[in-house]
């Protein structure tokens, strides 16, 4: 009866029904989509964080009171000393045995690394030293190449020595003499008769003069590589092979490899193409792209010097043909070549990779290479160890995201060598690098932190392309004490020397040896990630029972701002929904009040012939309930339809940095049944809540006043 009357009333008051109905419809629609978005982003963030590095739970020592974040703390890239897990093998065994939901316990140590790869001169001298038997033509070409480079160095040295280098007069004299010797005919005529001395002279006196503006910075996870790769399903090899079990070694993240190991000119060309392709802009309308082109043009002379004289000569005619220019050497033509525009970009880029790139070192490091990895030890001093690059991997789906993209993988033994205890004299010895590293780190910190949601993480924020500084190898912090230069130069030289010797540990280590040692933290992977809280409690209980000074933190607590991103998005959405609902309540309350007042007479009649206040209350509630359930159901269905559609199509990530939050280039929406129910329930409750005020008004209507209201 009440329902019958309610339905008739709704039909009779179509406008109000429509108003309330649309509010409910759009309210539920928005809340379903909002909830789906929130759910999906939360899931995606969780996936990006837990399946790349952090795992579901991180454990680490509770002795130090530091905020640990696997992605570096809020300043970015800063990894405070978090101590170590005492007796990791025992901890691992206890967790795996006692807590059934734990699938893997992966030992980890996260640190910041610096890579100082060979300059062209280094490479040529290494060639000469290691391959004296190569054919005469190549030998001669290499020697000529070294000689031209020495000439180039001489020119820049003269410029800089009088400028910012502030060399002593004695230094100036010896260096000038050395440069003169390295470019003189007699030296080269007698090169082979005294090969060793000649090479040593070049290595010690000339090579250090060359600037190394190719310093790279990145993070790595020291771990037992096979467990790590098994436990983190997003890791996918793209080149080479995983580090063989028991071996020391290194795996580059494709992201950092492509961005910082690849030749800068090529990186810029790649970046331009990507922008042209994804952002659909032209070079002529983008300042950013024009800037990149200009940087390539600026770097062209240096680039030309990397090509051997013989190849340069051969390339010249080819370039002349390609550019339709009658004359000019390669060095003269390259700046013109790199001055690309929208019309010729595609063909020139293809030409670059096909014809020019094979003659230069496109990647300063290749799979199979052994290279010195420099990192900051626990005590804060830099430390270098040779490692073998076994392969390149990526985090599948989030390969374009700088957040995880800067993390490479290192065996935990090497990690310990780099990170572990320092002997006092080793410490003193490496003090030299410290100033440089400090500068590098602070420069990185500043750029990294602010760039998380910015386009480019300026990891190599150095003097790229300008080629003006022969010695400020690390970065752009120009106000740095210039006295640091000679010292850092020494450190560089030492690092290079160690590289040249290529001594790398190829011993096979047992799992026990790998796990027994300094392990700062460990990632725990769960069989059922939904039981995170329960498992976390169990682990904490285990630690307490065993009296271990260990902390177990859920992924969200060890992912710094990223974990909070989910929370921030949630809060914003919640706030938005609250506003939507408040507006909804207001409109619904008014619409219901309007219908109620229009029906004053009718309500008065019902009261006069014996309708109780409760009857009037129930009647209005039924009407509102009917409206909200019917239109709410429509809204939920429409929302579900849209979410399903977006679940198939995906929302494209607006930029690379968001790909981490989207866990891929597109966010695929999905919505849980519970969220549908909640959206529906909230909409109905909001409407019923909104009708309380009109109901209060309605039950106060007296029969007598109603009877007079004609």
């Amino acid at each position, binding site marked *: *009866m009440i329902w*019958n*009357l309610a339905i*008739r*009333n709704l*039909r*009779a008051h179509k406008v109000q029904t429509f108003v309330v109905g649309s509010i409910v419809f759009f309210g539920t629609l928005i809340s379903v989509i909002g909830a789906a978005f929130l759910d999906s982003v939360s899931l995606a963030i969780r996936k990006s964080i837990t399946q790349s590095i952090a795992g579901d739970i991180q454990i680490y020592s509770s002795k130090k009171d530091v905020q640990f974040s696997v992605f570096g703390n809020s300043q970015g890239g800063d990894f405070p000393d978090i101590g170590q897990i005492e007796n990791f093998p025992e901890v691992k065994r206890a967790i795996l045995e006692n807590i059934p939901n734990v699938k893997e316990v992966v030992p980890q140590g996260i640190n910041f690394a610096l890579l100082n790869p060979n300059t062209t001169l280094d490479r040529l001298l290494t060639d000469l030293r290691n391959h004296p038997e190569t054919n005469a033509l190549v030998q001669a070409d290499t020697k000529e190449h070294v000689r031209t480079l020495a000439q180039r160095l001489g020119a820049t040295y003269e410029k800089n020595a009088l400028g910012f280098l502030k060399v002593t007069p004695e230094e100036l004299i010896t260096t000038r003499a050395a440069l003169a010797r390295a470019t003189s005919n007699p030296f080269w005529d007698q090169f082979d008769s005294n090969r060793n001395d000649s090479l040593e002279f070049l290595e010690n006196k000339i090579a250090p003069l060359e600037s190394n503006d190719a310093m790279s910075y990145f993070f790595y996870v020291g771990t037992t590589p096979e467990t790590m790769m098994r436990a983190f399903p997003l890791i996918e090899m793209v080149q080479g092979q995983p580090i063989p079990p028991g071996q020391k070694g290194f795996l580059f993240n494709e992201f950092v490899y492509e961005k910082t190991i690849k030749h800068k000119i090529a990186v810029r060309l790649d970046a331009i193409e990507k922008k042209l392709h994804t952002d659909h802009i032209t070079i002529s309308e983008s300042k950013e792209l024009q800037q990149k082109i200009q940087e390539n043009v600026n770097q062209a002379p240096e680039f030309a010097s990397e090509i051997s004289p013989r190849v340069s000569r051969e390339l010249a005619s080819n370039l002349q043909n390609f550019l339709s220019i009658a004359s000019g050497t390669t060095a003269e033509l390259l700046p013109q070549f790199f001055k690309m525009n929208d019309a010729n970009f595609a063909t020139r880029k293809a030409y670059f990779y096909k014809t020019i790139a094979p003659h230069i070192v496109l990647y300063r490091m290749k799979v199979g290479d052994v290279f010195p990895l420099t990192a900051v030890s626990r005590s804060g001093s830099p430390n270098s160890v040779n490692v073998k690059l076994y392969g390149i991997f990526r985090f599948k789906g989030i390969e374009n995201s700088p957040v995880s993209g800067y993390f490479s993988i290192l065996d935990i033994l090497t990690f310990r060598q780099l990170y572990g205890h320092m002997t006092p004299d080793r410490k003193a010895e490496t003090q030299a690098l410290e100033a440089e590293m400090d500068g590098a780190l602070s420069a990185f910190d500043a750029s990294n932190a602010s760039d998380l949601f910015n386009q480019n993480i300026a990891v190599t924020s150095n003097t790229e392309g300008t080629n003006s500084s022969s010695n400020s190898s690390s970065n752009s912090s120009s106000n740095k004490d210039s006295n640091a230069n000679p010292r850092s130069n020494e450190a560089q030289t030492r690092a290079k020397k160690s590289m040249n010797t290529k001594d790398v540990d190829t011993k096979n280590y047992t799992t026990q040896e790998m796990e027994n040692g300094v392990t700062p933290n460990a990632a725990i992977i769960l069989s059922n990630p939904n039981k995170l809280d329960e498992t976390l409690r169990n682990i904490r209980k285990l630690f307490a029972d065993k009296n271990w000074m260990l902390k177990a933190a859920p992924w969200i607590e060890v992912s710094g701002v990223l974990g909070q991103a989910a929370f921030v998005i949630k809060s914003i959405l919640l706030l938005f929904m609250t506003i939507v609902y408040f507006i909804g309540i207001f409109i619904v309350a008014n619409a219901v009040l309007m219908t109620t007042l229009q029906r004053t*007479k*009718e309500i008065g*009649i*019902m*009261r*006069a*012939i*014996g*309708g*109780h*206040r409760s*009857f009037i209350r129930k009647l209005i509630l039924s009407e509102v309930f009917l409206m909200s359930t019917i239109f709410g159901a429509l809204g939920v269905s429409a929302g579900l339809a849209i979410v399903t559609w977006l679940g198939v199509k995906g929302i494209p990530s607006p930029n690379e940095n968001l790909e981490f939050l989207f866990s891929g280039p597109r966010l695929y929406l999905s919505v849980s049944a519970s969220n549908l129910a909640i959206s529906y329930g909230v909409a109905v409750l909001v409407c019923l809540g909104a009708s309380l005020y009109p109901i209060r008004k309605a039950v106060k209507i*007296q*029969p*007598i006043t109603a*009877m007079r209201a*004609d």
Partner: protein
Amino acid sequence: MALINFENVYKSYRLDKVDVPALRGVSMAVENGEFLAVAGPSGSGKTTLLNLIGCVDVATSGELKISGENTSHLTDKQLTNLRLNKIGFIFQSFNLIPVLNIFDNVEFPLLLQKTLSRKERVERVRHYVEKVGLLEYIQHRPSELSGGQRQRVAIARALVTLPSLVLADEPTANLDSENAQNIIHLMRELNRNEGTTFVFSTHDHRILTEAKRIVTLEDGRITSDEKR
């Protein structure tokens, strides 16, 4: 004990800061089973009197007792129960629920009472709709009916709960003489057979001649009270 007992009842309405007196000291008693007409010129206070008896309005001063209960001491819920179960009210203006058809309108108080089964309700409703001669309109909406027809629906609705007291404010004002006659006969019959007490206001001589007692109001005062 009298069914209705007025004891120096005053009722005034406030209109634009001025008190408009509608009843000025009414005292009278109505016994069970009476068939009483309230007469008087327009504005004399007839509707006001019925509204007070019908518990849709309260006296400004004085005492009004129904079945010995002082209505000013009753809660809203108790008053509503009185209206629902004891009293049938036929208002001067028609007062049907516009979204319900005739059947539903007449059934409405029975549904509020929740005492009858569906079958009993249907029988009862049809019976009274037939008595007021509107069976063929039973599925119609009030808006499709004439003023007189609506008045008859209101009468059927007032009688359908078998109230012990029926109040009717000018029940025949909109009716032609044949229908008026029918209604009066129906009321007389109920009064005789069921002992239902009737209090109605009217100018209509056709009813006045049927009345057992006529109370005349003038300017909110009883000027005559004659039994016949």
